[in-house]
C-alpha cells in the first residue's frame, strides 16, 4: 500500500483546507475553515500538530509571513500543499470513493 493512502481523516481535512484557502492558509484560517465546514470543534493545537506532521512527511511546506499589528507583532506561518501532498490527498479520496461506491442507495442519499 502506498504511503499516500495512509492519511488520517483529520489530516485529509487539513490538506483540503489548504487547497481551499490557497495563499491565505495559516493556522487560524485552517482551523476556522474546518470548523465552519464540518461543524466540528477544532483546536489550534491540533491543527499545528497535524501540519507539523504533514510537513515532516513532505506533504506540505511552510514559510514565515510578515509580522502584523493585529497579531501583536507576530508573523504568520503560511502553509502550502506540495505535489506529494496533492497526490496523497487524491489517493485517499479515491480510496474513500471506491469504498463508498454503491452505498448511496443503502444510506438513502442520492
Amino acid at each position: 500500500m502506498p504511503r499516500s493512502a495512509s492519511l488520517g481523516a483529520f489530516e485529509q481535512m487539513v490538506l483540503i483546507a489548504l487547497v481551499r484557502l490557497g495563499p491565505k492558509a495559516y493556522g487560524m484560517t485552517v482551523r476556522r475553515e474546518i470548523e465552519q465546514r464540518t461543524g466540528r470543534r477544532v483546536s489550534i493545537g491540533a491543527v499545528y500538530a497535524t501540519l507539523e506532521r504533514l510537513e515532516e512527511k513532505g506533504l506540505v511546506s511552510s514559510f514565515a509571513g510578515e509580522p502584523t499589528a493585529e497579531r501583536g507583532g507576530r508573523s504568520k506561518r503560511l502553509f502550502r500543499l506540495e505535489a506529494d501532498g496533492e497526490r496523497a490527498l487524491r489517493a485517499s479520496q479515491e480510496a474513500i470513493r471506491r469504498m463508498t461506491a454503491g452505498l448511496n442507495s443503502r444510506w438513502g442519499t442520492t
Partner: protein
Amino acid sequence: VGHYVTQPAVPRSAIRILRWLLSERDREALIGDLVEECALRSAEPAQDSCRWCWEQVGRSVLPLLQARIRRRRWPGKLGAAAAAYVVVAPLVVASDVVALELSGGQPAVQAWISFLAFVAALMLGGCLATSIRRGAAAPLAAIVMVMSALWLAQMPDRPSIWYQLGLLLAGPSSAVAGGRLRN
C-alpha cells in the same frame, strides 16, 4: 478577515503554557493566531472571549504534547542515557569498595564517602549523557531513580526513610546537575 477593535487579552498564563509546548518555530505563529482570533471575537463579552481562549489552550495541550514528545526524539535520548548509565554504574560499585577501604571500618565515614562518590559519579553520568545527546540527562535521572528504588526494595534490612529519600533524590538531581554543567 474582520475588524480589530482592541488588542485582545489572551491570558498570560495561557501564553506561557503554549510557549512551553510549542517548537521555537511555531511558537510565535500559533500565539499570533490565537491573538488574532481573539481580536476577531472582541465583539463578544470579555468573559466569553477568555473562556474560548482557555478552551482552545485546554484542547490544544494533548496534541501539542504528543508533537513535543515526537519532536524530542525520546528513543535517541533514552539510548544515550542508558549508555551513560552503563558507564556510571560500575563506577558507583567501585566507589563503594573504595569507601569500605578508606573508612577504616567506621560505617558513618563509609556512608559519607560512598554518598559523595555516588553524587560525583552521577554528575559525570549526566555530563556524559548530555555530550552524547542533548537533553539525555533527564532520562538518565529517571533510570537512576528507578534503579535506586529497585535496589532499596530488594534490601533485606530497610535503611532509614531519610537515607532512602536521599538516595532517591540525590542520584537523579546529580544526573540533571551534571547535564546542566555540560550545557
